[in-house]
């Protein structure tokens, strides 16, 4: 019974691994499809650029594998965006688990910085992923693209506009923020995912 972190060419994997360790879970970091398939839970992290990451996943047939998973899967940041249908970041067709679109933040004024970097609130929380997490809790975000609001939205955040800070469909979950860097709130969310 194992939690697996999918290893690919988008960084941030160590932080997720250590966050799990702090919760007493020793996860396996791997790109081995058999190990991913047989895992109890799968975490799909990522910081980076969408088209390069998708290319990498396709070359290793990890794209088809991720879509076919039946156990709980948590996409983080770029991982969540790649689980959407399409990203404006270099016009990339993504995995299509969520039909939401990923678009670029376009501020009207230079005083609004892109990427968004820092702590912002998560609201309209739904699903057991947010059990014990208060409305308007703070989470840590770093991103220049956002997922639009749609039928799979289970949390919203406002930066320039309202967007999806978390998505859920069947066994697939995605969070735009970094739970592994979001202090106690993030730990609670990871713990909740581990209890699903």
């Amino acid at each position, binding site marked *: 019974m194992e939690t697996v972190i999918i290893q690919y060419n988008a*960084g941030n994997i*160590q*932080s997720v691994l*250590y*966050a799990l*360790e*702090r919760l007493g879970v020793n996860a396996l970091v791997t790109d081995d499809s058999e190990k991913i398939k047989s895992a109890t839970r799968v975490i799909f992290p990522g*910081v*980076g*650029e969408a088209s390069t990451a998708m290319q990498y996943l396709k070359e290793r047939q990890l794209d088809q594998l991720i879509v076919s998973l039946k156990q709980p899967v948590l996409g983080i940041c770029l991982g969540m965006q790649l689980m959407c249908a399409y990203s404006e970041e270099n016009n990339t067709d993504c995995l299509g688990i969520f039909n939401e679109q990923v678009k670029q933040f376009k501020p009207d004024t*230079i*005083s609004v*910085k*892109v*990427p*968004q*970097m*820092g*702590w*912002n*609130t998560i609201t309209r929380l739904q699903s057991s992923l947010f059990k014990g997490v208060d409305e308007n809790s*703070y989470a*840590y*975000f*770093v991103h220049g693209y956002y997922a639009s609001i749609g039928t799979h939205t289970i949390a919203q955040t*406002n*930066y320039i506009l309202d967007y999806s800070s978390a998505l859920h469909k069947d066994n697939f979950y995605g969070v735009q923020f*970094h739970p*592994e*860097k*979001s*202090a*106690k709130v*993030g*730990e609670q969310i990871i713990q909740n995912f581990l209890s699903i």
Partner: protein
Amino acid sequence: MLTKRIIPCLDIKDGRTVKGVNFEQIKDAGDPVELAALYAKQGADELVFLDITATVERRKTLSDLVNKIAHKINIPFTVGGGIKTEEDVSILLQNGADKISINTAAFNNPSIIKSFAKNFGSQCVVLAIDAKCEEDENWYVYLNGGRVKTNKLVKDWAKEAVDLGAGEILLTSMNHDGTKQGFALDITAQLSETLPVPIIASGGGGNEQHFLDVFTKGKADAALAASIFHYKELAIPDLKRYLHQQQIPIRL
């Protein structure tokens, strides 16, 4: 709403914090991991570690320390000091650092900003600038920890660095650093209003009002300080409560 960030800075030498600290809760005032954990618990939004080790062993000592911090700390942290090559960055990120900060090496070889941004993403490349306002009322870039003056204007260098891919600017005013008389509001606001990346203001924060000013008049996205936190002249929870009362978006 995106909040303003409060960032304590720890100076590191040979894996230990350089300036002693004055916390009863801490058993070993020189242990950066213990101090970092306390700041994280108190509500610091991020941490910055600046390594000033000069020995040949520095890389190993620093990567070991970063690894320990990453295991313990559940908020983002930046590591700076002596980073010159992609390999330096790679080792620190692999050990769990979220961002790296570069200063003199980037000024002497600006192409590293571009290569770091391309290989690791702009979000983890912080350009630190030591700035000094001269008698001609212009702000100039200083190097080597403030010992070497250049003829480059801060606003020009910051713009160049952002164009090359720097994702954040950590601006330290040498005129204000250590004075506890407040941050450099004019140059901070100037950079913040003309550049599309977050500006972290550093140098001069001595009381709550100074932090309020740097977020309102200085338009800073984040404020960094060291000794006022280490010596408990200002406690992070008190500072954040004050800013919240003053209608500054802040994480409590």
